[in-house]
Each structure stands twice: as structure tokens, then as C-alpha cells.
């Protein structure tokens, strides 16, 4: 037996190492039915627990990364500020000229900007929310192409928790995943295991944003819709309890049909934030509204001054928007194939309004000679020679039995206000 283990010692060690790791994989990646249907291979809730191996690896790597990052910035600053001064004189002249030009432009733009700010503030102030954020620096990555992670220089010591949103001024970046004492993982929105609720700004179609195998964020599980066009803005929907509502995500890059499900499409999104070149990010630490005292004072003042007008304008805009959406979604009440009414040219050469429809009489229960269509039921009259509207004539029924040999006397009535082309008779 000893000779067997001695002879195949290398192979046994190899197989043992592989077996242990495969078992470890099997334990970590258990697929419940729901995960299979959604395509998620790792259903573990983010931040639910950190594996010891991961904790060791991060504890080993990130302190050195932080040091290297800091030292790199220090050396870069030393070089830029003290050593690399060759073109400083020329740069100084160019900058001075730029400043002079910008001062002139600034004076012109100031008034416009102030006016724009006031108007914008009136409309948007009521909708705007301010969130508590914490700035953090990106100090490292996962080092793997299949895992799109970033490491921040802030952790639980700074109040970071799992599932906090990470954003920049351009748009959303991702969410905090595992948090360590002095560092935190950020799962980028273009990772395959990420997920964020988004809405297309124009078509108002909602979906889930996640990364595809090529590392592009895409909105999945959307039924094919021809209204979705490249360039449409994509915003956060706010329903995922992670990202605040209305933050820019990116713009639609292209629309691809889902290869597995023909009725669905994948909307490839070009992210607003530069996910490959991030240096600093903001972590949204609280989703509660947080307005400064100045903002609250401005809000109260604007409501006092322009509150009713703004409210009326907003209500009118909302009403028009709702009507427009209803018009687009509901079938039309008019026949689109019906021919357009002919334009009538008046005597002065100008188009005249269409004549009012001629009222049709109800069918008569007991027709007599006065009934419509009966012979001799109406008295004709020649149209006016000057082209003016002839006065409609109304027959006065006799109280006695009518004499068929004699036509009843016609009595002109008061002309009705109608178009000049009207030549019919009212009976």
C-alpha cells in the first residue's frame, strides 16, 4: 500500500486538490429553481456573508494597493508641481489669455444663467431630492476579466453598508457588495451578476439593467417595441431600493433581439459614467431627503412667490402629457382613411368654412302631400340672381282641407344665419 501512495503521490495530491476545490465550488454555487429560471448562478444575497478566503485575500491585497495608490499620487504630484515645469511659461500666457476671454463671456452668461437658474429652480425644486453621499477613491479592481469589481478606500469604518448605490456626476456606477473595515467592493452595473431597475425616459418602458457577457450594460426582459430607438435616455426607476429614482444610467446604444426568446429584446446601453476610468465615486449613504437650510428657505420663498403659477403650469403640463399618452395608446375615434373635406372658395377668393350639415327630417308615420318627397309637397323658387343666399321658404299648413287645384300661399320667413352656398329649403 505504501508503494502505491509513494508511486502515485503526485497524482493523488493533484486529484485531492482538485476534488476539494470542486466540492467547494459545488457548495458555493447551488442553484435553486428560481435562480435557474432567472439565469442567476449565485443567488446569495450581496453582503450576506464574506468567505474567509475572500477576507484573507482582500486583507492582504488592499492595504498595499492603498499604499501604492497614495504613493503614486504623491510621486505624480511631486513630478507635476516641481519637476516638470518646462512649458509652464507658455502655459501661463495661454491661460492668461483664456481668462480674459472667459471673463467677457462670463459677464454675458451671468444674466442668462441667473434667469435660467431661477426658472429651473421653480420647476425642478419640488421634484429634486438631495441624498447624503460619501466620496471615495477607487484603489483597485478584481484583476479578472470575468468579474467587474472595484475596490474603494472606504469601508464599514466610514459607514458603508452592502447595497448602497455608487454614483458619479455623470451617472450610476454600481452598488456596494461586500464591505470590509477599510475597504469595500463595488459591483459595477456592467457585471453579469448586477441588477438595477431602470426606465427608458421617452417610452417609459421599465426593465432590469445588468451586464452581458461582453461587459456592456443592457436592459433585459423587454418585449419587442419599435419605439425604442438609439439615443434614448435611460434612468433609474427607483424601485430596487438601491438607486435613487431618476439618476442617469446612459443612453440606448442599440437594440438586439433576444437569441433565446424571440419576442424579447435586449437594449444595449452606453453608460453615462466612464466605468473604465473611474478615480473617485460617490456612495449614497442615505435615501432620505436631505435639504440644506438654504435650499429649504429658497423652496419656501419660491412657493410663496410663484407657487400658484408653478402649480398651475405643472398641472397643465401633466394634463397635456397624459392626454398625449392616451392619444398614442388608444385607437383613434376618427377614420384615418376618410377623404378630407373639400375646401370651398368663397366669392372673395378666400377659403370658406365648411357648411353646417343639413338636418334630415325624421320619417313620417302618416305621409301626405306635405310630407318630404311627396309630389307638390314643396314650393320651389328660383335662386337669387345676385348670388346671395335665397331665403328659405316655409309652407304654412292650412287649417281646412287643402285644395289640390291651388298651390298654397308661400310666406317668406326670416332668413337663418347659414352659409351663402346653402340653397336647400327648410320645411
Amino acid at each position: 500500500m505504501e508503494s502505491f501512495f509513494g508511486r502515485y503521490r503526485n497524482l493523488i495530491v493533484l486529484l485531492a486538490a482538485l476534488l476539494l476545490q470542486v466540492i467547494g465550488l459545488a457548495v458555493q454555487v447551488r442553484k435553486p429553481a428560481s435562480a435557474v429560471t432567472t439565469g442567476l448562478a449565485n443567488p446569495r444575497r450581496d453582503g450576506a456573508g464574506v468567505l474567509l478566503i475572500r477576507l484573507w485575500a482582500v486583507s492582504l491585497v488592499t492595504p498595499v494597493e492603498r499604499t501604492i495608490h497614495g504613493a503614486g499620487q504623491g510621486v505624480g504630484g511631486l513630478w507635476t508641481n516641481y519637476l516638470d515645469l518646462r512649458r509652464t511659461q507658455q502655459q501661463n500666457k495661454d491661460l492668461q489669455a483664456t481668462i480674459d476671454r472667459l471673463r467677457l463671456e462670463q459677464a454675458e452668461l451671468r444674466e442668462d444663467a441667473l434667469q435660467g437658474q431661477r426658472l429651473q429652480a421653480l420647476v425642478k425644486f419640488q421634484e429634486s431630492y438631495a441624498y447624503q453621499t460619501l466620496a471615495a477613491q477607487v484603489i483597485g479592481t478584481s484583476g479578472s476579466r470575468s468579474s467587474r469589481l472595484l475596490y474603494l478606500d472606504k469601508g464599514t469604518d466610514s459607514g458603508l453598508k452592502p447595497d448602497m448605490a455608487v454614483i458619479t456626476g455623470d451617472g450610476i456606477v454600481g452598488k456596494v457588495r461586500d464591505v470590509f473595515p477599510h475597504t469595500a467592493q463595488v459591483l459595477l452595473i456592467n457585471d453579469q451578476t448586477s441588477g438595477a431597475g431602470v426606465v427608458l425616459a421617452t417610452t417609459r418602458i421599465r426593465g432590469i439593467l445588468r451586464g452581458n457577457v461582453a461587459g456592456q450594460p443592457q436592459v433585459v426582459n423587454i418585449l419587442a417595441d419599435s419605439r425604442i430607438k438609439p439615443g434614448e435616455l435611460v434612468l433609474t426607476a427607483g424601485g430596487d431600493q438601491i438607486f435613487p429614482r431618476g439618476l442617469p444610467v446612459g443612453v440606448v446604444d442599440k437594440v438586439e433581439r433576444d437569441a433565446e426568446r424571440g419576442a424579447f429584446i435586449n437594449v444595449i446601453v452606453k453608460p453615462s459614467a466612464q466605468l473604465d476610468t473611474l478615480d473617485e465615486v460617490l456612495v449614497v449613504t442615505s435615501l432620505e431627503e436631505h435639504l440644506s437650510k438654504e435650499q429649504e428657505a429658497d423652496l419656501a420663498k419660491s412657493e410663496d412667490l410663484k407657487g400658484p403659477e408653478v402649480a398651475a403650469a405643472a398641472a397643465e403640463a401633466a394634463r397635456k402629457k397624459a392626454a398625449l399618452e392616451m392619444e398614442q395608446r388608444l385607437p383613434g375615434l376618427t377614420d384615418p382613411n376618410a377623404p378630407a373635406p373639400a375646401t370651398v372658395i368663397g366669392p372673395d377668393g378666400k377659403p370658406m368654412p365648411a357648411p353646417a350639415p343639413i338636418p334630415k327630417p325624421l320619417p313620417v308615420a302618416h305621409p301626405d302631400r306635405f310630407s318630404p318627397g311627396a309630389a307638390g309637397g314643396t314650393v320651389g323658387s328660383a335662386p337669387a340672381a345676385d348670388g346671395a343666399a335665397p331665403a328659405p321658404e316655409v309652407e304654412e299648413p292650412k287649417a281646412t282641407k287643402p285644395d289640390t287645384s291651388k298651390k298654397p300661399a308661400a310666406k317668406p320667413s326670416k332668413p337663418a344665419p347659414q352659409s351663402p352656398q346653402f340653397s336647400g329649403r327648410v320645411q
Partner: protein
Amino acid sequence: MPTLIPDHRRDLEIRRYPTYIYVVAPLVSLILQAWLPLLLKRFMYMDLPLLMTIYFALNRRSPIHGTVLGAVLGMAQDGLTQGAIGIHGIANTVVGFLAASVGIRVVVENNVIRMVMNFVLTLAASGIVAFIVRVLLGQDWHSSGLDELLRATGNALIGAVVFPLLDRTQVRE
């Protein structure tokens, strides 16, 4: 052929290194692997922990040593990701075993052979990772052949520079 097959005692001996080298070199490779993408962005065509696995496995000529080192470094790589731990671990384990097994049979001081070994073993590691992700885990795996070739080439070139530097730390008897 004499340059490929070891026939001298010097070629067959196991190279030894100071203990701290076994700790520092893999650790530095892990740190650089995680930090360099910030500078190189998407041009990160290298896998430094795998390179360390290959180097020590080739020079130690011990399959057990290569297996264990590959497993530890691979799992540490996995520890820096959000994925399952063991993907790179299994790949590096196999590569460490293969490198040590080949190292017994070829001259490992020849730089051309080292470059070829790095190139081939890096491709093998990529194939194993793809197999684990697609077959064992049932997940999507996207990587173009060009990317994998560039990564293997990058590892081969970096190995040509780093391996001679590590050779200098050998313990000479």
C-alpha cells in the same frame, strides 16, 4: 535536442529560493494583478499569479509543490472577485502540476522554452477556466480568441523579463 532534454546534474537539480521569496513574489503578483488595471485599463493582457505558479513549478520540479502553490494563488485570485472561489484555483492547480511535470523533462533555463511554456500554459489555464464556468457552473463565458492569445503573449513576454530576475534570487549551493 541537447538543449531541450536535461542531461547534466545542474539541469536536473531542484532550484531553491529563500523562504521570503515564496511569500513576497506571489503576494506582489496578486497586488499588481489587482492594481495594474487601474493604469492599463482594458489592456491588461497578463496573469501574474499564473506566471508565478508556472515559474516556481518549473524550477522546483515538484508536482506537489506546483499543485499546492497553484491552488493557493488561484483561490486568492478568486477571493478578489465576487464569483465562486475555486475557478482560478482549479485552473492554476492543473497548470502548476503540468508545469512541474514538464519541468522535469525539459531544460527550464532556456528563455525560448520558458516563453513557449508560458504561452501554452496560459492558454491551457484560459481553457480550463472557460470549461469550469461554462460546464461546471453553467454560466455564460465570453472571451475572444484574440484576447486569449494576447494574454498568453503578454504572459510569455513578461515571463521572459521576470523569470531571469527571479533566477537571481536562487540559493546557490
